[in-house]
């Protein structure tokens, strides 16, 4: 019995080999090359060292770009969560046909290119866009507000563009919650808010964390939306890397920024993961 079980395991490991090879060739190797590149002291590679890292970490401007990028991710994630939770809740609590419609609306953005979605936001936020036209027609403002090419615009657009990443894990988590629990809670005298805070929120925590993790990672690396809605004067890490590599051909510095960004993102992801493990323990006793 033990023997046959062992052979099954080894078979499964062998099955994973193509994927492992794929990862090594197309992920690990480029990463190592990137790291080696980042150790060049100048673009020609005449000498090596950690100079590029020292330059980045010693520069308030560069650290500011890193900080504002990570902070942008926080804002987008919070907004996506606040907007996405009710959608996920609605989906879980709707009858069958409405579930289908809501799911379609949630998934629809995934079926269009992120460029298309982002251009839609340019149309919405522009001077003659939907928001400004409406505000002027309502007589609330006289001159159009500057919405496009502002950080608020970037946050709103990113939150919408990445919304499916937030809503889908939330739907999974919420639909795994027994609907009787909410009924039991109200039967015991709890109002809606208490039921939400004490029962639904803790039990949906794994979904919240998974959604936040995906949204955060997608938001801070969203080069297209960041640059199309944010414009050229708002610098976040992806554009910073692009600028150094593409416009300046300073590959070593671009590589170093990439590695630093990667480490920063991994740190945030690890925090989410730890929280996720804690919440799973919490949610399932």
């Amino acid at each position: 019995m033990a023997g046959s079980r062992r052979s099954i395991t080894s078979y499964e490991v062998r099955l994973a080999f193509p994927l492992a090879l794929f990862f090594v060739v197309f992920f690990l190797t480029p990463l190592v090359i990137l790291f080696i590149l980042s150790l060049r002291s100048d673009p020609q590679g005449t000498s090596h060292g950690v100079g590029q890292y020292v330059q980045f970490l010693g520069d308030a401007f560069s650290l500011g770009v890193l900080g504002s990028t990570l902070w942008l991710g926080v804002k987008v994630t919070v907004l996506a969560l606040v907007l996405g939770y009710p959608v996920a809740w609605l989906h879980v609590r709707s009858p069958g046909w409405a579930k289908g419609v809501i799911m379609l609306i949630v998934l629809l953005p995934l079926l269009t290119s992120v460029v298309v979605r982002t251009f839609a936001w340019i149309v919405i936020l522009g001077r003659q866009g939907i928001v400004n036209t409406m505000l002027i027609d309502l007589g609330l403002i006289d001159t159009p507000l500057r919405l496009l090419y502002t950080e608020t615009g970037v946050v709103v657009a990113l939150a919408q563009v990445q919304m499916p990443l937030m809503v889908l894990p939330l739907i999974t988590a919420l639909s795994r919650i027994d609907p009787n629990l909410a009924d039991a809670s109200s039967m015991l005298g709890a109002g809606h808010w208490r039921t939400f805070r004490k029962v639904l929120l803790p039990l949906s925590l794994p979904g919240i964390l998974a959604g936040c993790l995906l949204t955060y990672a997608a938001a801070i690396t969203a080069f297209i939306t960041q640059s199309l809605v944010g414009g050229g004067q708002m610098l976040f890490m992806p554009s910073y890397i692009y600028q150094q590599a593409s416009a300046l051909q300073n590959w070593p510095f671009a590589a170093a920024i990439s590695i630093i960004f990667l480490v920063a993102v991994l740190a945030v992801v690890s925090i989410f993961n730890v929280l996720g493990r804690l919440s799973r323990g919490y949610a399932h006793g």
Partner: protein
Amino acid sequence: MQLNRRHLLQTALTLGAMHAFPGITWAQARPLVFATFTGSWEEAHKAVLVPAFRKATSNADIVLDPMLSVDQISKINAAKSNPPIDVMLHDPGPALQAIAQGLVEPYPVERSAHFKDLIPAAQEATGPSPFFQTVGLTYNPDTVTTPPTSWADLWKPEFKNRVGITNLNSTLGTGFLVEIAKMHGGSESNIEPGFKALDQLKPNLSAVAANPGQLATLFQQGQIDISPGNFNAIQILKARGVPVEWVAPKEGAIAFKTTIHIVRNSPNQELAFKLIEAALSPEVQAQLMEEPYLIVPTNTKVRMGGEIAKALAKDHADMLSKFVFQDWAKINEQRSAWIERFNREIRI
């Protein structure tokens, strides 16, 4: 020979690899690979340059592989001894980088039929310039009723919150900065007045686009009414019904040479030469000058006509007096410092 599983696998892998990386078999003979730019460049080259090349070489194989200048440089750098590209197309900044990195074969000037007919600025031995790009002022004629005449018009109070520029990642943005520095007594080596002027432009700035393509969107959305703009890009917008006009400012339009180069160690040196010759020929240049391409010719044998004659210059002498060329060797030396400074200072 015994056929076993391992043997089959090896064969399959080899075949698979050859399929996945057809370049492996290209070492002997492959079509000429021309890395043009994407978009209207590719369209123009496919429609005009490629047929001319085929005619001149009795149907030699050619592949257009449009990509950014930086991508061309990195691809060739990755395989210097057997480059995957034979002919490169570059803006002035990247051209100098490619030359500095030793990726460029000198152009066989003495064998060229057309080189001597080019305007002097286009006669570069490292790679001639078959086309110009021209940067002037773009405006929305619906909202800007008096056409602008000078770069200085961008600072007019009436354009508060209506001006768009690009950042320095683009040739356009960098060229514009150099030009306004010159306007205020600076030069390629003294950019300080340019940054000062940019600072004073801030109240008028509505948007700093990440690339010139974004400016088009901003015009379409009514986000900006006036900006520095590329002549060719504006013609495309106009053709699509966007209300935009282009004028050359009285200080002169900024001209960028787009240069074409034979890649060092290319296995198709002769075909590459023939392609460039076709690009320099008056026939091709005259055709590319017409609608819808409107590409400024550099061969003096081409008679200026159409929209180009109307908006830019009636002949090559006029062109030379109206165009401003910039010293990109000097610009390249400091461009990274400028970009860094722009990153820090230009926030709206």
